[in-house]
C-alpha cells in the first residue's frame, strides 16, 4: 500500500511539474539557507579549532605599553626615550608569584633581515631570505604547538651566549638551500649576510617546521622570508648599534601555562599582578590576553550569525509549509471525483489520508533534498571563493536534521488537506463536477 502510494504521489507530482516545483520552492529556499550557513559556520568553527591548536590554547601573551591616560598628541613629551618594557625583576617576580600556572616564558626579539647562502653553492640559485630572531630558552616550549623540531635539536643551555653561532632554521630554508633534506642540513654551515654589509657564519643545529603562514612581500614561495632562530644574546650582538632597542626593551612575552590551568582566570590575575608591579606614577600599563578568549569571541559571533540566518531559514520553511498546505488543498479539491471513486472501491478514510499525506511528505522531502544540495553548493562556494579558501567541512548533523525537518513539514502541513480528503462524503464527491 505504501509503495503504491509513493508511486501515486510521483505520478501526481509529475502531472504538473511547474506547480510541484513552485510548491517546493519555499522548502528549497529555507533548507538551502540553513544548510549553507551551517556549512560555512561549521567550516569556520573547525578552521578556528585547528588554528587554536596552532596558536597554543594554553598560551597567555603579555604586552606592556603606554598607559591609556597618556596623551599621545603631546609634542613636548620625550617620546624618544619612552620605552615601555618588562624588567628582569618583574619577570622574576612573576615567575615566583605563579609557580602553579607558569610552565615556561618565551621571549623573542627581531633583529635584521638578510640572505642566507651556502658556501660552494651558486648564490643565485641557492638562497633563502631570513629574519634574525633571538630567543630565550623558553621560547621553543612556549611555541611547541605551532613549531616542532623535525631534525636536529633545540639549543643546549651552554649554547645561549653571544658567541654561540648556532641556529635553528625553517623547513622552507632547507627546501631552498639543501633540496629539502632536513637530516642532512643539520650540522651544515650557512653564511648570513645582513643589511649593513656584514656576513656571519652559523651552524645549523636543528630544523623546525611551523604551521603558521608567514606573509611577506614575496613574489614567490621561494622568496618568502623565514625566521632564522639564534640565541638572544647572539642576535643582539649582530644586530648593530642602531637596532639594539628591540633587544633592550622587551615589551612582549608569551607564557605557556601548565596543563589544567584555567587560562581565562589566570590571564586576569596575571594582568592585575603585572600592573601592581609598576610604580604608582607609571606611564605604562600591562595587557594580557589569551587566544582562548579570542577564539571564543570569534565563535560566539559566528554562532549569532548562524542563529540569525537559521531564523530566516525557519521563516522560509514556515512559508513553504503553508504553500504546501494550500496547493495540496487545491489539488485535493480538483480530485474530489477520484476520492469519491476510491471510496466506492473500498478505500477507508485512513487509506485516503495516507495517500495524500504521502504526497505532501514526498514533495517536502524532494524539496529538502534539492535544498540540501543547493545549500551545500552555496556553502562550498562561500567557503572557497568568498572567504579565504577554507577546506569545506560539512556539518552532517545539519543535513540529517534538514531531512527530518522536511519530513516533519510534510506531515504537519499535509495533515489538514489530507484529513479533508479523508472525510469527504463519497456520494457528494461522486457528484462533484
Amino acid at each position, binding site marked *: *500500500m505504501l*509503495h*503504491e502510494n509513493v508511486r*501515486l504521489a510521483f*505520478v*501526481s507530482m509529475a*502531472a504538473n511539474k511547474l506547480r510541484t516545483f513552485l510548491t517546493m520552492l519555499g522548502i528549497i529556499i529555507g533548507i538551502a539557507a540553513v544548510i549553507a550557513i551551517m556549512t560555512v559556520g561549521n567550516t569556520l568553527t573547525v578552521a578556528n579549532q585547528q588554528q587554536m591548536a596552532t596558536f597554543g590554547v594554553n598560551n597567555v601573551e603579555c604586552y606592556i605599553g603606554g598607559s591609556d591616560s597618556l596623551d599621545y598628541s603631546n609634542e613636548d613629551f620625550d617620546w624618544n626615550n619612552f620605552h615601555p618594557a618588562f624588567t628582569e625583576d618583574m619577570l622574576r617576580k612573576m615567575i615566583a608569584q605563579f609557580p602553579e600556572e607558569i610552565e615556561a616564558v618565551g621571549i623573542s626579539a627581531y633583529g635584521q633581515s638578510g640572505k642566507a647562502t651556502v658556501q660552494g653553492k651558486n648564490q643565485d640559485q641557492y638562497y633563502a631570505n631570513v629574519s634574525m630572531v633571538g630567543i630565550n630558552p623558553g621560547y621553543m616550549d612556549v611555541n611547541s604547538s605551532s613549531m616542532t623540531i623535525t631534525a636536529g635539536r633545540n639549543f643546549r643551555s651552554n649554547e645561549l651566549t653571544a658567541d654561540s653561532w648556532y641556529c635553528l632554521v625553517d623547513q622552507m630554508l632547507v627546501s631552498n638551500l639543501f633540496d629539502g633534506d632536513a637530516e642532512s642540513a643539520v650540522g651544515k654551515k650557512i653564511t648570513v649576510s645582513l643589511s649593513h654589509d656584514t656576513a656571519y657564519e652559523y651552524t645549523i643545529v636543528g630544523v623546525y617546521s611551523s604551521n603558521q603562514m608567514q606573509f611577506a612581500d614575496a613574489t614567490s614561495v621561494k622568496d618568502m622570508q623565514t625566521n632564522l632562530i639564534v640565541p638572544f644574546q647572539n642576535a643582539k650582538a649582530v644586530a648593530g648599534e642602531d637596532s639594539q632597542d628591540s633587544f633592550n626593551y622587551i615589551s612582549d612575552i608569551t607564557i605557556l601555562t601548565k596543563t589544567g590551568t584555567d587560562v581565562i582566570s589566570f590571564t586576569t590575575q596575571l594582568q592585575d599582578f603585572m600592573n601592581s608591579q609598576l610604580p604608582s606614577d607609571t606611564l605604562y600599563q600591562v595587557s594580557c590576553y589569551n587566544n582562548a578568549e579570542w577564539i571564543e569571541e570569534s565563535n560566539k559571533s559566528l554562532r549569532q550569525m548562524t542563529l540569525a540566518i537559521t531564523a530566516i531559514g525557519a521563516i522560509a520553511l514556515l512559508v513553504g509549509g503553508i504553500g504546501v498546505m494550500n496547493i495540496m488543498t487545491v489539488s485535493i479539491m480538483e480530485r474530489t*471525483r*477520484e476520492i*469519491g*471513486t*476510491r*471510496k*466506492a*472501491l*473500498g*478505500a*477507508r*478514510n*485512513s*487509506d485516503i489520508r495516507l495517500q495524500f499525506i504521502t504526497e505532501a511528505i514526498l514533495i517536502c522531502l524532494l524539496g529538502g533534498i534539492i535544498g540540501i544540495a543547493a545549500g551545500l553548493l552555496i556553502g562550498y562556494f562561500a567557503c572557497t571563493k568568498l572567504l579565504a579558501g577554507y577546506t569545506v567541512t560539512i556539518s552532517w548533523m545539519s543535513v540529517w536534521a534538514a531531512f527530518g525537518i522536511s519530513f516533519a513539514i510534510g506531515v504537519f502541513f499535509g495533515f489538514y488537506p489530507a484529513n479533508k480528503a479523508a472525510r469527504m462524503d*463519497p*456520494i457528494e464527491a*461522486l457528484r462533484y463536477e
Partner: protein
Amino acid sequence: MPTEEEKILPEETAEINYGADAPHEEGTDPVISLHQIVKKYYIGSENELEVLHGISLTIWPGEFTSIVGESGSGKSTLMNIIGLLDRPTSGTYEMLGTEVSDLKDKDLSYIRGRQIGFVFQTYNLIPRISALKNVEVPMMYARIPQKERTEKAEALLEMVGMQDRMNHNPDELSGGQKQRVAIARAMANDPALILADEPTGALDSKTGRLIMDLFHRLHEENHKTLLLITHSQPLAEETRRILTLSDGRIIGERRGTNAS
C-alpha cells in the same frame, strides 16, 4: 402491456418483499435483502423529506435485475444505500446473511470494497494511471499482495477484451473501452453484486450494445449477479427482473421481455 405485470396499489407495496420467494439454490443466502428501507433527509427540521417510503426487495445469486425509474423516483438514493455508500434511516439490509445497515464507516468501506462492484455512467477511472493499475485499485484496498493483483487484473482485462490496452492511460481510451476497464475493475474482488448505474448513458448505441452484450456474457457464462439502475425501459427489458420504482416505492416487478 406485458401480461405478467402485476399492478399493485401504492399502499399495498410496502407489504411486499420483491423477490423474497423467487426460486433460488437451496441453502444459499440472498445477495441482498432489503426490508422496509426508509430514507429521510433533514430529520427533525421542518424541511424533513422522506425519499424512500419502505423498500423491501431480495436479490439472489446469479440474477440479472434492473431497477427502473424516472428522475426523482428515489433511484439514486436507493442505489447509494444498496451500494453501501449511504445508510438507511430505518429498515434492515442484509448482505449474504449479515446485517450491514448499521456498520461503522470502516467496516462499511471494507464490505463495500469486497462485495460491491460499481460501474458508473461516467466510468470514473483514476486518471494518469494505466488500465491495469485501475483494475488493481479495489484489490489494493482489499490488501491483496501486488503479484496476485497484477495477475488477476490481467485476467480480468482479457475477459473484457482489453488485454491489448492494458498499459494505456484512461485519456488514451474511448468511452466504450473505458467502460470495459471499469467493468473489469468492478469484478476485481469477486464481489457479490455488480452495481451498474446507467452504464451506457454516455455511450452511443453501438458501443452501448457492446457493453450490454458484455453484461449478458458475464451473467450467463460467468454467473455474476448484476443490478442495473436505469431510466431506460428498453434497457431494462433485457434483464430478467425489472423492479419499477416510483415516488420512493417499488410499484411492481415484472420479467423483461427481451431477457434471454
